[in-house]
């Protein structure tokens, strides 16, 4: 399942997509949990009883601000969450 967390507002679209099929057999040791400087990820049991990564509820409506520090303007050349997720499950839309 592709889970898109985030929103669209007047300034643009801000979604973090997680391919949860890649989470169920995570080969990165759940690295997303520690890679995000703000600790935005968590492991949940989804509606189909799979243990998958998700963006915490508290961050879902403020991604544009919360992720700013990890974007190129913040000095990063790649996103820490996407880079840590070696199966390639995590993607940003912006």
């Amino acid at each position: 399942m592709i889970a898109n967390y985030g929103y669209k507002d007047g300034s643009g679209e801000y979604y973090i997509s997680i391919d949860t099929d890649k989470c169920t057999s995570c080969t990165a040791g759940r690295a997303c949990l520690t890679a995000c400087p703000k600790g935005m990820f968590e492991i949940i049991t989804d509606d189909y009883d799979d243990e998958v990564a998700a963006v915490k509820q508290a961050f879902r409506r403020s991604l544009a601000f919360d992720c700013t520090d990890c974007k190129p303007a913040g000095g990063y050349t790649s996103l820490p969450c996407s880079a840590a997720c070696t199966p390639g499950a995590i993607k940003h839309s912006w």
Partner: protein
Amino acid sequence: MTAGEKKEYWRWQETCWIDESKNWRDAKIITAGIDVGSVSSQAVICVDGELYGYNSMRTGNNSPDSARNAINGVLEKSGMKLEDVTYVIGTGYGRVNVPFAHKAITEIACHARGANYMGGNTVRTILDMGGQDCKAIHCDEKGKVTNFLMNDKCAAGTGRGMEVIADLMQIPIAELGPRSFDVDEEPEAVSSTCVVFAKSEALGLLKAGYSKNKVIAAYCQAMAERVVSLIERIGVENDFFITGGIAKNPGVVKRIEKLLGTKAVETKLDSQIAGALGAALFGYTLMQKQGASAKAA
């Protein structure tokens, strides 16, 4: 209505229905789904995996009471007691506050499952236009979610937005859709990014001489454009199905269909019960699995 009494144009019709052709006393498994949404609450009862009855009403200021009121309506109409229901699943925004639920499942999974039942197993793309959020969902032939996207940050493209316009225009909400077609030419959409801006823009259009119908048409178009941009992010695959209260508004539905270039699957069932129906069906599957594993043991 007396002078000074305010008419509630936004108020939609609450419904309670049971299938008189079925006898719940003959059923082996009775399951219920309770969808406590931000604006409306529904209770659906299924007997042996088939829809038996439902109650759809306005959510109050207390989720447990809303859940109780919703289920009590359909229980009273059918002569059933809560003890007769084998398994209850809560869903929606207030899903964790359904006191008599055995389990909670997100409305995303439940809407997909409900749409699969209501629109058939060929449904692949679902648009749920709820009271205060909007979801685009992809599912497989079993109604299992394969992709979803949700927007609950702003009220644009939601039922609450339409209620605001109904009150502003002083036209009952059920009449907005049909009246939006009663225009000489289709107007430009109003601001589609914010209900507050859309409301002030609608007021400006009225002052500029637009008829009420033309303003409603502009708002319906804005709402359609808003949700279409959401669906396009995950892509449209036929069959396409719309759930939620806005599915009853032809002014928005027809415009969405035009923008997407596809027709939504029609159903005789109430589009608002999809989430609760999906929850009740999840309960049935769970009970079947438990029965099968008990037999195996």
